[in-house]
């Protein structure tokens, strides 16, 4: 709304409601920080598995952005490059084995966006982590492609041979696990690079350090109690990636810090249970998806205490 100043010598005025100051936060900024942090483990994957990985990412990126565009058109909504499709594409690629056929990458990226996000109403409305939803769809649909993992195969390393992942075999030297020189999904590999990316996210305030701590901590504790090697369980598989980049996705995890901690502990317990008892070597994806489903419930029970609240405990919202 504009109004002319009667005195004429001053410019017209804009009317808006308070606050008239906005912080520099934006969805794009958040998403591109996450993208930046994710590029570290991604380039680690390129280093260990070769340039084919880049091809996978490009496929995923193009499919994801294009799918989002189509979905927005069909829903008659404005399409925006808010960066969330980019994050989903990278995360999804990192959950795949190094030699996944490109058509599977494309199908998965499409499902991640269309089924994982847009059917719920777009970014912010989705219940499940889109990348993990896409991964679950292709994992269930084309299982044969997800049992064969190759050891790191970049031409500058040794020749690739098809092996089982350390989790399926149950052993690998810690140091190789830590820096990422093991067979596995692209992002299951370098704990070190994920850690650096995670620290970037914590330092920029995008994620709470409590989440990875409690996630990884509960995995370690429970595996110790069950007579397993906790360090191995931490470093092997997608736990690090999940703990820093997936269990921290703000859209699909609880709102309060307390709720986030409950989510992290729940996911940690589920990971160990799935790994040991469900005959699936890797449980992180399913553990997080299950906890995603519980998130609305957690949010109903865990609320901050309002100022001046007189009761002892905040009740749940019906």
């Amino acid at each position, binding site marked *: 709304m504009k109004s002319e100043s009667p005195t004429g010598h001053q410019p017209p*005025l*804009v009317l808006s409601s308070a606050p008239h100051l906005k912080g520099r936060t934006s969805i794009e900024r958040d998403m591109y920080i996450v993208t930046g942090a994710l590029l570290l483990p991604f380039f680690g994957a390129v280093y260990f598995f070769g340039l084919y990985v880049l091809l996978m990412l490009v496929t995923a990126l193009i499919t994801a952005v294009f799918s989002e565009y189509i979905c927005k058109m069909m829903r008659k909504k404005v399409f925006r490059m808010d960066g969330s499709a980019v994050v989903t594409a990278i995360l999804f690629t990192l959950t795949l084995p190094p030699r996944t056929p490109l058509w599977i990458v494309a199908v998965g990226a499409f499902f991640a966006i269309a089924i994982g996000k847009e059917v719920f109403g777009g970014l912010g409305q989705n219940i499940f982590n889109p990348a993990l939803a896409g991964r679950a769809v292709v994992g269930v649909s084309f299982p044969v492609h997800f049992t064969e993992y190759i050891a790191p195969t970049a031409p500058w390393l040794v020749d690739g041979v098809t092996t089982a992942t350390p989790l399926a075999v149950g052993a690998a030297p810690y140091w190789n696990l830590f820096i990422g020189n093991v067979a596995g999904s692209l992002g299951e590999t370098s704990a070190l690079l994920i850690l650096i990316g995670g620290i970037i996210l914590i330092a920029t305030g995008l994620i709470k350090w409590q989440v990875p701590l409690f996630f990884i901590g509960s995995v370690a504790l429970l595996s110790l109690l069950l007579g397993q090697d906790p360090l191995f369980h931490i470093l092997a598989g997608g736990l690090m990636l999940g703990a820093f980049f997936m269990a921290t996705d703000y859209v699909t995890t609880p709102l309060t810090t307390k709720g986030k901690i409950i989510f992290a502990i729940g996911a940690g317990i589920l990971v160990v249970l799935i790994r040991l008892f469900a005959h699936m070597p890797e449980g992180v994806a399913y553990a997080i998806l299950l906890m995603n489903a519980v998130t609305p419930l957690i949010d109903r029970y865990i609320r901050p205490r309002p100022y001046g609240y007189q009761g002892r405990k905040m009740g749940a919202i019906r």
Partner: protein
Amino acid sequence: MTMKTRICDLLKMKDTVGVHPPQQKMTAGAVIESTQLPDIVTLMMKQHSGAPAKLLVKQGDVVKTGQLIAEATAFISAPVHATLSGEVKRISSVVHPLTGELTTAVTIVSDGADDWVETVMVDPDGLSREEIIARVQRAGVVGLGGGGFPTYIKLQPPADKPIHTVIANGAECEPYITADTRLMIENPERVVAGLQIVMRVMKAEQAYIAIEENKPEAIARLRAYLAQLDLPHVHLFVLKACYPMGEAAVLIREVLGVEVPEGGRARDVGVLVQNVGTIAAIYDAVACGKPLVERVMTITGMVAKPKNLLVRFGTTASHLIALCGGVKPGGDELLFGGPMLGIAQLSYDSPVTKSVNCVLVKQSIMKEERNCVRCARCITVCPMGLMPLMFYNYVRKTIYDRLAEYRLETCMECGSCAYVCPAKIPLVSYIRIGKDELWKQTTDK
């Protein structure tokens, strides 16, 4: 500290902090100037919360500066005084610059003399409690921090709610504004003397002057002044700097570590919070017999020379801005108040009222509203421990019953949540709609 709070602190599970917008206090070093008086003032009959004042003058009357021109009509109301000497030119109905409602206003054209009514200095120590309260009431003193609540009412709490602590609010946490800070630096004696009057009226045991840590000059000045006087019951309290530290509820929690119960007021926990500007006005009213006709305002933002000015009420924004060298190119938003709480004005001719602490010209920001992404930043910063995104959710879905469960009434509309929202959702606007709906529901029943 209990075990539980210690664990909570360790895990940082308490989410309540506030925000740190850029300070922009460009007038922090600018001495308060009394400048050329305007030729004309437009006085609103409602410069306070409560009932409008009743007009006592008619067109053509000649008035002196400080003369009573409208009297309080109800318990919650305040009188209005002429802020210039001259002739009552017009009595009209105009849009109120703060509420937007049509309000009676008196226009006085100056005779250039600024001829004051007689005021008598008295020694406040010689006055009884009732006399002090009466003088505050007659002088038309209202809360100058923004609320505009008639001060004399706050000075007489019900007998079953004794006040043990007075907090002089010098936080001034909003960006740009430096009116209170300058007042504390330049007139610490008025603030402290006023505070002593308030303490005596309230029979309070102790008082705090609360200032944010980022105002070292004001802190040093008051500390030195208090040391000189050696007042055992008046303490300086240095606050952490964050917005909205100056909101009474937050201030009480910060200074005394107690919370005002839901739906209650500060007096329920035995506390009186007064803005330092109001306290100085109390001193002027009681000791000098001076009615409230002027106050310190910060004229700032995109003006050529930002200043702190002693401003007569009813002066138009355009006059004040002209005194500061005019609007700089790009300034297209005029606010009465700071950037977080200020109210946008329709025109540069809007007259200032008692509760305007700042006239701010800035560049408007128009950000497109997007869907909430559940980033929870609004929860993290809400000083009242609320979940602002829930207000947005349920107002959008028009499920108003839920709003009360999420304690909408506790929200003080500080705007911290809207400030941090990456989706640029105008959360305060949604909150106001929600409050209107809740209010409608209670009145329907």
